[in-house]
């Protein structure tokens, strides 16, 4: 699977994972979709998200962050503020992906019960672009 716009968070180094995650969320200006897990659904989501991340609007670029091991950054993920959407913090297992805006807030959550396709991931990116 060729991924040109995806950053894969390392699963064996928690400190590095934390640094990379926080840098992307808080320091850099990307429209982010963060994919959780390593199952088939997550892999599909990454593929679709990476494809849609080729688009940039008004100079703003998109990026995908793949956290294959949910546990490694669950605390940092739960610490994110709610924007247009909120993460089910007591049941992160249901979450396949979510998008984060420039203001570091959660703007869209994709659950495993939904249809995961190109359109759905593109929608997540677009929701991240809304000014809130």
């Amino acid at each position: 699977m060729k991924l040109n716009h995806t950053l894969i968070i390392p699963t064996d180094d928690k400190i590095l994972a934390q640094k990379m995650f926080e840098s992307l969320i808080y320091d850099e200006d990307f429209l982010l979709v963060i994919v959780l897990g390593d199952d088939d659904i997550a892999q599909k989501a990454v593929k679709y998200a990476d494809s849609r991340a080729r688009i940039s609007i008004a100079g703003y670029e998109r990026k995908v962050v793949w956290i294959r091991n949910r546990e490694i950054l669950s605390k940092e993920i739960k610490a994110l503020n709610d924007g247009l959407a909120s993460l089910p913090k007591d049941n992160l297992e249901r979450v396949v992906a979510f998008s984060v805006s420039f203001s570091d807030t959660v703007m869209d959550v994709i659950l495993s019960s939904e249809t995961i396709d190109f359109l759905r991931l593109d929608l997540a990116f677009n929701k991240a672009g809304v000014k809130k």
Partner: protein
Amino acid sequence: MSKRLLCWMILIVLIFGTINTAAADNLPILKCNEIDRHGRESKVNFSKHKYPVVDVNSTIEIVINTSLVRSLAAKEFKIIPPIDEDELNSIISILKLKTKMLKAFGACNSSFNNCDLILDYYSQNMIQLELLVMKIPRLRQKVNETMELELQGPAELEQIFGIVAREIGRLSKLLDENTEQTKVYFRLGGWLIDGSGNEQHIHIPGFDEYNEGIFYEKPSFILPISKQAHDQYLQASEAAESYNKEGFSFSDDRFKTMLSMIADSLENAWDCLEQQFSKTRSNQLLGQNDSMLITIQRSFRSIHTKIVTLREKISAFIKLVQTFQKNKNSFALSSELINSTRILFSELTSDLKSLENDLTDFNELTKDSSVKEKLNKINFEISDKFSNCTEKISRITSNYLSILSKALDFVYGDNKLAFAKANLEFTSKVKRFLLEDIPGSTRLDLRKIGIRNNSDQIHLRAVVEKEDQISNEKLKSIEIDRRVLLMYQLGFHVGYSVGTVFVNPWDKKGVTLKSEFQMVPSYSIFTRWGTRSASFNRIWKPGLGLNIATPDFDQNSNPELGLGLVITLFCDVVQVGVGKNIRGDNSASYWFFGLQLPLDLIVKPGLLAQ
């Protein structure tokens, strides 16, 4: 702006086939652009104003969203296309969204400097589109399939709505085939509605077979040199002379006599009925029919009440006339009298009709032929005298009421607009188009629809109609859009007003007026600036200009000449100004005010009898 974004814009424009990336209003079927005399084009903004103002001499370009017409027609007539209703609704929503999407991309190019705003705008619109697409399973599938192919193909990225546009194009074609089979038609009609609510059809090029109206370009400069202005001046002059000598006059003995005669007729009716009732009651003592007596009693009481009420109304009115006779100079009393006249006669019509019916019914109950004859005669006399009276009163009050109506137009203006929504019926001269043959646009030159005045309205109606294939009779007509345009002269223009003003000289030297104010005829020439605010044009309508009046301060029957400055408000009903008598010996300066007066009333005594 990125190269990719530029490529997408070009692609979208080519696919959608429209270059209108300017801000578009949200109304889907009819869109209007105004083209002024200099060829400058501007959008008519229906989202900002419910009844937007256009220049009375402009050309209106009417653009029709034909694809949306087809989709709405399919929905309204439940034409069974190969898609379900929810899908059709989503497609309609997507089509409505199209212009907004184009605006979003247009904004990226020019309007916004702030990239955050661009991103936000794009994102909001794309979210709407994607949510709609997700409701249509086959459309969603199509989008995903295309995006899948991109992974294998070249790096060029195709936007979602490019895919959507193609799919909708395919579905629209299917809808067209269905609608053609079911014979659904589109029609566009136009009407001109004037300030009095009169409607006339107007010719919209390409959409009907009406003749064009008289070519009329409303002039920007109107000077009081016409015969009409001259006649108005003469009338004002007579009115002023009469007022200055004798004040307001509303004396008409014959008019008063007629009202008295009605009152007398009512008295006769009362006497006749009272006698009949007494006779019937005495018959009852001789053992006649009790139920008949009750009916007669009931009828008698009803008639009694009505006669008493009518007599009281007429008496009150006659007293008012008598009071006015003693205070002829009172403008307030004159207004009260006119108002009371109008109210009295509007009520009298229905009151007398009701009484007439009751008298007729009572007549049926009596057996006495002489009573019957007498009652018939009374009925006839009342209605005859009353109709003579009303004819006179109508003539007297109509002028006043028309001026009052004009002055109050700004209060009831909106009601008139609301009323004007009714009765816009299509005739056979309005063409019917099959849905695939609808012209995309037309231009309506307002100068070619005939005589127009400020505040006249243009109404446009778009309908779809379905025909029964067997009988060819129209089954159902559904309005899909209606637009109203208000016409006003915009920008700088000059008008005039002829009437009377009340002048009050400041310097009393050489002035021999009996009263403080002298009524004089006058011309006023105003400059105005018409705006796109209907309420400003309709209510305030300020003007500034010159006033020419002919006072006679020294009362030597030789009118002098006064020149002054004047301000007008409220559709010229109120004028206020200052001037100087430039011809008289005293050269007195003065101030003046003017109100639109019912000049028919300000006549010499007895003239009303004519």
